[in-house]
């Protein structure tokens, strides 16, 4: 597998791993049959993402994309965060192998889910 140094660096030293206590939003994407499961947790203050963490079962690309998006999203407004695409995540890592671009490149999807989850909870504070 031809991974860039940046991918390997994030794979070997992933940032912000683990479940967040009382997160404001949680996004879950992937499924066991495709071999990737990604959980992204965000904390939101004044419409900005102040913190993000992840838990991922998946290949090197899945772990590296999860790791780097937790850094990319920090400090962004929710609108800016929603504009992050999977392709941008891959670009930040210096690219991904072709076969990985469409299977393990799910971090932006997980982020969107997390933001939607946050907004759902805002609309209905009793919702779990």
């Amino acid at each position, binding site marked *: 597998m031809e991974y860039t140094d940046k991918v390997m660096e994030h794979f070997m030293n992933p940032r912000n791993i683990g479940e967040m206590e009382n997160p404001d939003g949680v996004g879950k994407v992937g499924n*066991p049959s*495709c*071999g*990737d499961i990604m959980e992204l947790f965000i904390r939101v203050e004044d419409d900005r993402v102040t913190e993000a963490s992840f838990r991922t*079962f998946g290949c090197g690309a899945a772990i590296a994309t999860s790791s780097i998006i937790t850094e990319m999203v920090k400090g962004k407004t929710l609108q800016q965060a929603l504009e992050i695409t999977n392709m941008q995540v891959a670009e930040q890592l210096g690219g991904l192998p072709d*076969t990985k671009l469409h299977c*393990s490149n799910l971090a932006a999807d997980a982020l969107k889910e997390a933001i939607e989850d946050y907004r759902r909870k805002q609309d209905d504070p009793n919702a779990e």
Partner: protein
Amino acid sequence: MRRIYLDHSATTPVHPRVASVVNRYMLADYGNASSVHSFGEAARKALIRAREQVAGLIGAEDREEIIFTSGGTESDNLAIKGAAWYNRKKGKHIVTSAGEHHAVLHACKALKRHGFRITEVGVDSEGRVDPDEVADAIEDDTILVTIMMANNEVGTVQPVAEIAEIARRHEVLFHTDAVQAVGQLDVNVSELGVDMLSISGHKIYGPKGVGALYLRKGTRIRSQQHGGHHERNMRAGTENVAGIAGLGEACALAEEELKFRRSHMIRLRDRLLDGLQESIEGLHINGSRDERLPNNANVSIAGVEGEAMLLGLNAEGIAASSGSACTSETLEASHVLSAMGMKPELAHASVRLTFGRENTEEDVDYVLQVFPGIVSRLRSMSPLDY
């Protein structure tokens, strides 16, 4: 950094003795075996010697029963398509198993487009084919049964002699892909009762790009490649003399070392499997513990994806492989593990470590020293339970 190669089922290093033989037929005795002159004579002699060495290793009665090919995949294709086309007026049905190598499964699939019917018998949770199921699958117009001798992924050894006997009773040809078994197990074509058997050079410390098909005397198949009269009209094309000489030498070496290789690799394999089971919770040994290739250790580690483990191992200098979708171009989990009924999250969590003659107990201990740490690091970021 320490580098340990534990992927011998993918390929093996060429043995120095083999390399020097290959070298000779590339640099000095480089003639075409069809030529009249002394250069051709040297090449012809090399082919005869190699044929005898291959025949010797697998107990073939006559060296003329050996057809040289470009490798295991070509041998499988020649056996299956060759038997199918030759016998197509007798019948158009072939029996194989769900755990076969793609060289077999995809050759069968190609025949399906030409009106042949393929029955894939299943495998049990250890990857084993039930001979009774093969017997039940044989129909009036079955012309070929093809079941591998040992599985390349999980190492399960199939009851090939028993299945060959069933095929013979039904007067159906029997082929076995013995690419992984040769050089590790006793492979004797007479005792096994097989009509055709595939061999690969690079799995037994020989060169890549060369293999052989054993074709029992009297067994008729149709050639799949047309041109000159090479290999008794069964495989046209100027013989890969250097590669073939190397394959022959590799077979001679395998015969000399068979007992040592088997006991050496079983010791390493069991030391690894026992050690991993002790040190890693939620570890599942894939395949049969008893009916297993000496060099094969295949485990699934709950909650950790296979490719991630390979990268972690590689960072510690250890070369292994996985049945995870992420390591295949098709993005599907191993068809063998799936056929064994394994849940996808465990199939994606598989790692295969395959030993070779040059591995040592220190290699195993090094793996046991670093592997649990890799697993716990990856588990710390996994959302799956184990």
